C-alpha cells in the first residue's frame, strides 16, 4: 500500500499547508470580531470600524480560497491513487492463472475493485485529513484548558481515556462485523451474477422462485449482520456523546466549588466551559473517523490479499525466433490441486510441424485439460511439454501464447463490437485478414448484422445461435495465424452442411500449422493426419483413423456409433 502512496506523498503533505492555514484563519476571524467589540465599539471610535471590517472580509475571502485550494489538490491525489490501484488490481488479476479464477468468484473480486477501493479513497480524501485536524484541535484545546486551570484541565484530559479505550475495543468487534458484511455482500454479488448469466436456464425450468429464495437468504444474512453493525455503532456513538456532556457537568460542579473557595475566577470558568464546548464535536467526530479509518484498513487488507497472491504461472525469458511448431508431450501428468487422482498421467505425444493430430476420448477423459496445458492455462504437475525443443515453461508467455491459439468449444464472447471480439488475439489484423478468417470459419453472417463488424454483441452473443458463436470463435483463432492451432470440439454446434464447408476451409489453414483437434465425430477426426486415443487419462494408441478403427475396439466404440444398427433403422 505504501508504494501507492509514495507518488502522492508530496502532494498529500502540501495539502496540509492550506488545511492548517485555513484552520488558523478560522480561529482568527472571531478574534477580529472580538477586536471590533473591544476596540471601536467600546471606545466609540467609528474610524477604526471600517478597516477592521475590511480585514475580516479579506480573511474570509482568503479562508475560502484556501479551502478551494485544499479540496482541488486533494481530489486529484486521492482519485489518482484509487485509479492506479484499480488498474494494478486488474492487471494483476489478468496475470493470475486459471486455478486462481476457478477458486475466486468474480463477485468477490468485483467488490474489492469497487467498494473496497472507494472506502480507501473516502478515508484518504476526507477521513485522514480530518483525523489530523481534529487531533490538532483536541490537543490544542486540552493544552489551553490545562494552562487555564490544571486540575480541571486534567479532568478533561482523563475523560478522554475511556473514549480511547472503548474506541479501540469497539473497533476490534466492528472490524469483524464489517468484514463479515463485506464478505456476505460479495457472496450476494455472486448470486446476482450467476442468476444473470444463467437466466436462460432459470427461465427454462421456471426456477425463478428457487433462485429468489437463494438470493433472499443471502440478502437477509446481509441484513442481519448489518443490523448487528447498526446496534454496535449506535451504542458506540451514543457513548462518544455522553462522555463530554458528563464531563461538562462535573466541570461545572467542581468549577463552581473552586470559584466558591476563591481558587478560580468566574471569568476563567466561563472561558473554560466555552472552550470545552468546542471539544464536544471533535470528540464524537473522532470516533466516526476512526471507524472510517478502520473500514479503510479492512478494505486495504482485502485488496492486498489479491495483490499479494503470486501468479503461479509466470513466463520464462525464452523467445523462439522462427517457430516451427514442433510439439511434444513428454510424460505429462496433470492433477487438480485438491484431487487425489491425476486427470492425465504419463502422456507422450509428438505432433510434428504442419501435422494435425486428433485427440479422441470419452466425455470427461481430459481432452480439454490436455489442450489447455499447451498455452499454459494450467501447468503440468509432472513431465513437460516442449515446442521446438523448448519447455513451454521457459518461454515468455507472450511468445508462447502467440504461437498457440485455441478455439474453445464454448466460445467466450464479450459485449464488445464483433471486430473487437474477432481481433481478440491479434489487434493489428488488417481488414483483408479479417475477411479471410471470416471466410474460413463460414462466419459471413456478421456482415448482415445491423452495424456490420461494429455491431455490439451481448456477452452471451445476444441473438447469435450456438453455431454462429462457435464460428466467430473459430475465426478469432484462425485470425491469429498461430503456429499451433487447437480446435477444442469447435464444430459441435454446426449443422452438417456448414460443418463440411468449414472443414474444407480448415484443411488449408491446417496445412501450414500444427494442429490439435479434439473431436468426437468421425467427420472431424478426418481433418487429422493421425489420431491419439485418450483412455483412462493417458494416450494408449496413436495412428491413422482407419487403422485404429480396425484394430482398437475402444476407439471403434467411441466413433462408430454413427453407424450403430439402431441409428440406421
Amino acid at each position, binding site marked *: 500500500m505504501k508504494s501507492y502512496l509514495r507518488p502522492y506523498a508530496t502532494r498529500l503533505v502540501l495539502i496540509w499547508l492550506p488545511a492548517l492555514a485555513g484552520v488558523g484563519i478560522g480561529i482568527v476571524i472571531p478574534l477580529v470580531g472580538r477586536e471590533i467589540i473591544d476596540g471601536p465599539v467600546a471606545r466609540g471610535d467609528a474610524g477604526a470600524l471600517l478597516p477592521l471590517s475590511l480585514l475580516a472580509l479579506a480573511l474570509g475571502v482568503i479562508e475560502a480560497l484556501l479551502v478551494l485550494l485544499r479540496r482541488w489538490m486533494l481530489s486529484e491525489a486521492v482519485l489518482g491513487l484509487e485509479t492506479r490501484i484499480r488498474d494494478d488490481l486488474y492487471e494483476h488479476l489478468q496475470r493470475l492463472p486459471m486455478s486462481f479464477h476457478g477458486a475466486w468468484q468474480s463477485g468477490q473480486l468485483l467488490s474489492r475493485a469497487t467498494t473496497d477501493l472507494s472506502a480507501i479513497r473516502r478515508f484518504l480524501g476526507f477521513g485522514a485529513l480530518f483525523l489530523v485536524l481534529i487531533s490538532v484541535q483536541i490537543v490544542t484545546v486540552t493544552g489551553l484548558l490545562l494552562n487555564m486551570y490544571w486540575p480541571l484541565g486534567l479532568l478533561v484530559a482523563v475523560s478522554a481515556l475511556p473514549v480511547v479505550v472503548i474506541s479501540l475495543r469497539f473497533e476490534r468487534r466492528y472490524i469483524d462485523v464489517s468484514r463479515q458484511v463485506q464478505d456476505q455482500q460479495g457472496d450476494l454479488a455472486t448470486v446476482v451474477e450467476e442468476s444473470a448469466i444463467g437466466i436462460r436456464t432459470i427461465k427454462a425450468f421456471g426456477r425463478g422462485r428457487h433462485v429468489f429464495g437463494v438470493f433472499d437468504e443471502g440478502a437477509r444474512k446481509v441484513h442481519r449482520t448489518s443490523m448487528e453493525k447498526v446496534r454496535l455503532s449506535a451504542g458506540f456513538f451514543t457513548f462518544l456523546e455522553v462522555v463530554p456532556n458528563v464531563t461538562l457537568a462535573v466541570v461545572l460542579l467542581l468549577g463552581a466549588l473552586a*470559584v466558591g473557595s476563591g481558587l478560580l475566577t468566574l471569568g476563567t470558568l466561563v472561558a473554560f466551559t466555552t472552550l470545552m464546548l468546542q471539544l464536544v464535536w471533535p470528540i464524537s467526530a473522532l470516533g466516526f473517523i476512526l471507524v472510517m479509518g478502520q473500514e479503510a484498513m479492512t478494505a486495504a487488507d482485502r485488496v492486498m490479499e489479491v495483490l499479494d497472491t503470486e501468479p503461479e504461472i509466470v513466463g520464462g525469458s525464452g523467445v523462439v525466433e522462427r517457430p516451427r511448431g514442433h510439439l511434444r508431450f513428454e510424460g505429462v501428468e496433470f492433477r487438480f490441486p485438491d484431487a487425489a487422482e491425476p486427470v492425465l498421467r504419463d502422456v507422450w505425444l509428438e505432433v510434428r510441424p504442419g501435422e494435425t493430430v486428433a485427440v479422441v476420448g470419452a466425455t470427461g477423459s481430459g481432452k480439454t485439460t490436455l489442450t489447455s496445458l499447451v498455452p499454459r492455462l494450467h501447468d503440468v504437475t509432472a513431465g513437460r511439454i516442449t515446442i521446438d525443443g523448448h519447455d513451454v515453461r521457459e518461454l515468455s508467455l507472450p511468445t508462447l501464447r502467440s504461437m498457440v491459439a485455441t478455439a474453445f468449444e464454448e466460445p467466450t464472447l464479450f459485449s464488445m463490437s464483433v471486430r473487437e471480439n474477432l481481433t481478440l488475439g491479434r489487434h493489428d489484423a488488417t481488414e483483408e485478414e479479417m475477411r479471410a478468417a471470416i471466410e474460413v470459419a463460414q462466419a459471413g453472417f456478421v456482415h448482415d448484422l445491423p452495424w456490420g463488424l461494429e455491431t455490439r454483441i451481448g456477452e452471451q452473443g445476444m441473438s447469435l445461435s450456438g453455431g454462429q458463436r462457435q464460428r466467430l470463435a473459430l475465426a478469432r483463432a484462425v485470425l491469429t495465424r498461430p503456429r499451433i492451432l487447437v480446435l477444442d470440439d469447435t464444430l459441435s454446434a454446426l449443422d452438417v452442411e456448414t460443418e463440411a464447408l468449414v472443414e474444407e476451409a480448415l484443411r488449408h489453414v491446417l496445412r501450414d500449422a500444427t494442429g490439435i483437434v479434439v473431436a468426437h465425430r468421425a467427420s472431424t477426426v478426418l481433418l487429422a493426419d493421425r489420431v491419439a486415443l485418450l483412455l483412462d487419462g493417458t494416450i494408449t494408441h496413436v495412428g491413422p483413423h482407419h487403422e485404429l478403427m480396425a484394430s482398437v475396439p475402444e476407439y471403434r466404440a467411441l466413433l462408430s456409433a454413427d453407424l450403430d444398427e439402431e441409428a440406421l433403422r
Partner: protein
Amino acid sequence: MSGTDTRNWRGVAAEDQEELSEQVSFLLRSRSRRLLGELLRPYRREIVLLVAVIVVCNAASLAIPFLIKVGIDEGIPPMASGRGPATLVSVVAAVLAAAAVQAATRQVFLRMAGRVGQDILLELRRRVFAHFQRLSLSFHDDYTSGRVVSRLTSDIEAISEMLQSGFDGLVTAVLTLTGTAVLLLVLDVKLGLVALLPLPVLLLFTRWFRRQSSITYRRTRETVALVIVHFVESMTGVRAVQAFRREPRNQEIFSRLNADYRDANVHAMRLIAIFMPGVKLIGNVTIAAVLLYGGWLALGGDVTVGVLAAFLLYLRQFYEPMQEISQFYNTFQSAGAALEKLSGVLEERPAVAEPHKPVTLEPPRGQIRFEAVEFSYLDGTPVLPEMDLTIPAGQSVALVGTTGAGKTTLAKLVARFYDPVAGRVLLDGVDLRDLGEESLRAAVVLVTQENFLFTGSVADNIRLGRPDATMAEVVEAARAVGAHDFVTALPEGYETQVGKHGGRLSAGQRQLVAFARAFLADPAVLILDEATSSLDVPGERLVQRAMRTVLADRTALIIAHRLSTVEIANRVLVMDAGRIVEDGPPDRLIEGAGRFAGLHRAWLDSISDMPNVPD
C-alpha cells in the same frame, strides 16, 4: 484503422442511441421519486417518530450549553455569597438529565433509523432482484449481466450510504439551520435581516450546484457501470483473455474506462471544491457585513454588545451546517442517480408478461399448435413469416434445417422465451400467454446447448429440475441419462462442488447434468435444442436410448444437426428461411427426393467416409 483507439471497442447497440431530452429527464426524476415514496410509505409512522426523536435529541443537546450558562450566571453567585449550592446542584442535575435524554434519544434514533434503513435496503434488493428474474429474455439479451450486477451492488450501496449517514446528518443540519435563523430574527430584526440577506444568493448558488452535480453524478454512475461491466466480463472470460494474450488490450480499455471514471469523480469533487468554499465565502462576507453594520448600530447604541457577540457566534453556526448539507449532497446525488437507474429497471415491463387470470393445465397433455404465428427479433426482418403447425400430444418431432432456418426460434416460442409478433401459440388449446408461469414451466422444459451450472453440488444442479426431488430420484435421473458413472467417479460423488460456472466438469459432463435436470423435471413437452452436441458418441447413444423410453409418453421437439438423433423421432419437419418445407415420418422422407433425403444421404456419406468400417 480503428483498432488502436479505445473508444470504439464496444461497438454500436441500440441503447446508445437514446438522447435524454428535457422531458425524459423530468420523467426520470419523477419515477425515482415515486420509487422512493413507495419504499418509504410502509415506514411513515417510524419516520414521524424518528423526526420527533431527533428533535428532542437536538433540543437536549442545545440545552446543555444554555444550562451551563444558567449555572454560571445563577448557580455560582449564591454559592459565592454563602447561600448554598441548591441552584447549582439542580442545574448540574439538569445537565446530567439533558445528557441522559440526549443519549437515550440518540440511541433510539440510531437503532431505529438503522433498522428502517436496512429494511428498506432489503426490500429494495428483493424487489430489484425479483424484477430482474421476471423480465423476459429479450431484456436480458441486451442488458448484460455486468449491468445487472452493478445495479444490485454499487447502486444499492449508494442508497445504503445515504440511509446510513445522510439522513441523520440532513435532519440535524436542517434543524440547526431553521433554529438559528429564528434565533437571529428574535435577537434583533434589523441585524437579523442583514445576516439573512445573502440567503437568496445562497439558494441560487445551491441550485446551480444541484443542477451541475446531478449531471456529474449521473456521469459517475455511468462510468462506474462500464468499469464494472468490463471487469466482470474479463474475469468471467479470463480463459479466452489469457489464451489469446488479450491482457494488454484489455488493460488499455480498462485503464481508459478507469480514467473516465476518475475524471467523472474529479469533476464531482471539484464541484464540491467550488461549492464548499463558496458557501464559506458567503458566510464570511456576511460576518464582515454584520460586523460593520452591527458595530455601527452598537456605536449608536441601537444594539447591545451582547447581542452583537451572540450574532457572531450564531452566524458561524448558521453557515457550518450548510457545508455539511453539501457534504451529504454527495451521498444524496449518488443515491439519487442510483435510484434513477433502479427505478428504470423496475419500470421495465416484461415483454413476456404474466397473465392477469392465469389458466392452469391439470394435467397437461402436450398438444402444441401454432396459429398464423409471425416472429421477428428486430423490426422488419421476419424470422418466422407465418407458421401454422399442429403437434399432437405424445409426438416426437425432429426439426431439421440449416443454421438460421428458424428452428431455435420455433423452440423458444414454444417455451415462451418470446411472444409471437402475430398469431398465437397454444398448448392443449390454451394460448401460452394465458398460462400461468408455474403451469407453463411445469409443462414445457427447454434444454439448450448452453447449460449453466450454478455454484453448488452436482446434486443441487440436477435438483434444479425439481427442487423437492429426493436423492434417490436425483440418482435415478442421472442414471437414466448415463451421467451416474462419471458423477460417482468424482471425489465426493453427487456432493462434489461443480465450481464457478461448472468449471470443474467438462462440456460434455455439464450437458449430461443438464439432461438429468430435464429428465427430473418430467415435463409434458420436452424441447432439446442441440442438447447433445457436446456428448461423445457413446454418451449420445446412451441419451438416445434413454429418450426412447422417456419420450414415449410425452411431446418432444428435437433440434439436432446430427441426423442420428432424428431417428428416434416419429415426424420430421424440414425448415428453410422460417418456413416448413417438408413434413412427414422420417422413413417416408428418406425415400422421397426432397431436401431431407438429400441431407440424409450427405450425412450417410460423411460417416461412411471411413474405410474399413466393420459390419
